[in-house]
């Protein structure tokens, strides 16, 4: 008999973990059931990651005909390179901006929709649609809205005297990609926040309002602390999203420009590796990116989880 412990983590539950034990007669079946997932993980995650680690230690020409082992030289060059350091700071600004914007707006919307009774499902359906759009298309949509020649937003901004041009202005370009990336993620955050809000017992809120607490006080002292498991989970997911899944949005709108103003780490990996054909440097950059995200996640789990009220 084989025991398999399945841990089910639920961000909405008030209990932290639920342990379920499954028993299987014989040894073959559990391994057979796990095999597809393990094989997929090995082929699509472990193998490429290993390949990237190996390639980051090499210097090759584009065709792979001359390969030299150079140890950590690729990494050292990156940290001496001004454009890589720029990319680090750009990514930090972008990740923080996207996460803050998308989570704040999503929480606002979820709090508002939570108060509705009859139209709740309609609003929820409509607010979830952006999540279904492919990131590249989302980028193109926002490209049209903000296009300096034909877009509606620059037209309106010009009436207040601001000439929007994300082709010339680095800050305009950063704003554009933050809006586009945050917009997509708002739906996802909204759903989780809404579910989290709905799992808060009404009795607590009613008791607080009977005691004379204003809506703001109610929110910050009762609702928000009870939302912390959801918030923590979404923080991790949003940061990972901003660091990795936003490649398509950058590619479709600014291509890292103008003058490297939106050249986030994951885009730089593509630009250096596939356009510049410098595979060693590109592999080193993806290794560093992986280390950064792993470190960020570990920090979040270690320090922020302590403040989460389960």
């Amino acid at each position: 008999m084989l025991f398999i412990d399945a841990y089910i983590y639920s961000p909405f539950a008030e209990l932290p973990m639920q342990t379920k034990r499954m028993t299987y007669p014989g040894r073959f079946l559990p391994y057979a059931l796990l095999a597809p997932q393990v094989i997929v993980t090995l082929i699509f995650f472990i193998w490429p990651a290993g390949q990237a680690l190996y390639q980051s230690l090499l210097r090759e020409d584009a065709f792979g005909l001359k390969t030299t082992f150079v140890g950590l030289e690729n990494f050292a060059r990156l940290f001496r390179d001004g454009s890589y350091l720029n990319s680090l700071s750009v990514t930090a600004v972008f990740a923080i901006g996207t996460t803050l914007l998308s989570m704040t707006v999503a929480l606002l919307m979820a709090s508002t929709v939570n108060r509705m009774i009859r139209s709740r499902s309609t609003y929820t359906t409509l607010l979830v649609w952006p999540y279904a759009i492919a990131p590249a298309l989302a980028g193109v949509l926002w490209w049209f809205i903000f296009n300096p020649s034909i877009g509606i937003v620059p037209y309106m901004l010009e009436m207040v005297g601001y000439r929007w041009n994300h082709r010339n202005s680095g800050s305009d370009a950063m704003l554009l990609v933050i809006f586009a990336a945050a917009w997509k993620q708002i739906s996802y955050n909204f759903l989780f926040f809404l579910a989290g809000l709905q799992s808060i017992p009404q009795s607590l809120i009613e008791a607080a309002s009977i005691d004379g607490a204003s809506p703001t006080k109610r929110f910050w002292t009762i609702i928000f602390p009870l939302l912390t498991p959801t918030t923590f989970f979404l923080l991790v997911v949003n940061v990972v999203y901003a660091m990795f899944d936003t490649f398509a949005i950058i590619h479709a709108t600014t291509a890292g420009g103008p003058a490297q103003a939106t050249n986030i780490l994951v885009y730089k990996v593509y630009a250096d590796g596939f356009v510049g054909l410098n595979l060693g440097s590109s592999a080193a950059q993806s290794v560093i990116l992986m280390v950064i995200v792993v470190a960020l996640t570990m920090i979040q789990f270690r320090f922020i989880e302590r403040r989460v009220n389960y």
Partner: protein
Amino acid sequence: MSRFTLHALAVGVATASLSLSAQAATEISWWHAMGGQLGEILEEMTEEFNASQDDYHVTPSYRGTYTETMTGAIAAFRANEQPHILQVFEVGTGTMMNAKGAIYPVYELMEAHGRAFDNEAFLPAVVGYYTDTNGNMLSFPFNSSTPIMYYNRDMFEEAGLDPEQPPETWEEVADFSRQIVESGAASCGFTTSWPSWVMLENFSAWHNVPLGTLENGFGGMETEFTFNNELVARHWDNLHDWQEEGVFKWGGPGSGPDSEPMFYSQDCAIFFGSSASRADVAANSEFEVGFGMQPYYDDVDGAPQNSIIGGATLWALQGHSDEEYEAVAAFFEYLSQPEVQAQWHQQTGYLPITQAAWDLSKEQGYYDENPGADISLKQMTLNEPTENSKGLRFGNFVQIRDIISEEMEAVMTGDKSGQEAADDAVERGNDLLRDFEAANQ
């Protein structure tokens, strides 16, 4: 059916299919980057080759931009899935030439299959760009272009300018543009596609000023950039000042994707683009188009010199059978015939690669019927090329061109002066040149 009939039928079918497979043409694949009108013309030309004989069949396949096509082919090569023929743009020449195990030099290919391939038949500017230090051609010239000036004749008239007289110097370009903008005919004077190619590379050659040491890189991989000179800095500062005035509008870095739409929408009156944009310009402009040569600064000695080519050549990749290379050689021979070249040149605006094709077009009266179609040729052959105007051969130039247009963009936004941007571009470019040298020792 009786047994005899059945057997007879079986033998008959077998023999028929045997002879069919014996006649099956050798299949070769061609990866190219010609989209839009150019792609259609290319496919027609390939179909004509396929229809003209039974032994070989070429399948062209559009793979995206030049960069995407080249990157895709390199990835395919690493996976042993490479095509037979690959169209690589001129800035990829450095990378391709140094990939000795990946390419099959064209002069060797043609010799091995007994096909004529004479350097002398090609235009000198083309030959110069694609030969190695021993004078052997490594790739097959296919579509070479050079930047020319397209202008809106209707708008010139509206602004009170003579539509037969395009501006010749940069001062004239600025003056004409001011007149156009002031008269209200357009909101901008001129714009450009491919800013690095037009406003640095060709600009330097046209003024007989070097881009780098060692004959712009032809002399070896130890070359260094020297384009952070006074003339280039002055020109980039001028572009910035003209943009402030409204005379010039920046069309974006890289390929300058916003520039062509601005010309078609009659936002800008003058457009600097490849001579091969002719087909697209003809299809998309609802006004009379004029053609002119690139302008120059008349206070520079030696200007105008001659322009350098852009465009692409066809490379044969290693890893295929002898039979398939036979097909490639036959296709290349077909492409170098004067009739085929002349038709390709006339339909697309690319230069006729051979002298014979140029002569044939003259005989056919093509240039009389289409004034301005030979501007590109006139520019290229204006003078005998010097070591500053033969072309360029720098490794990693795909990335370096992006860096150059990025630095130019910084000048346009006012973040840097022309000299600062040129200095930074030289520094960053030299880093990449050293990288290339190290990776290809």
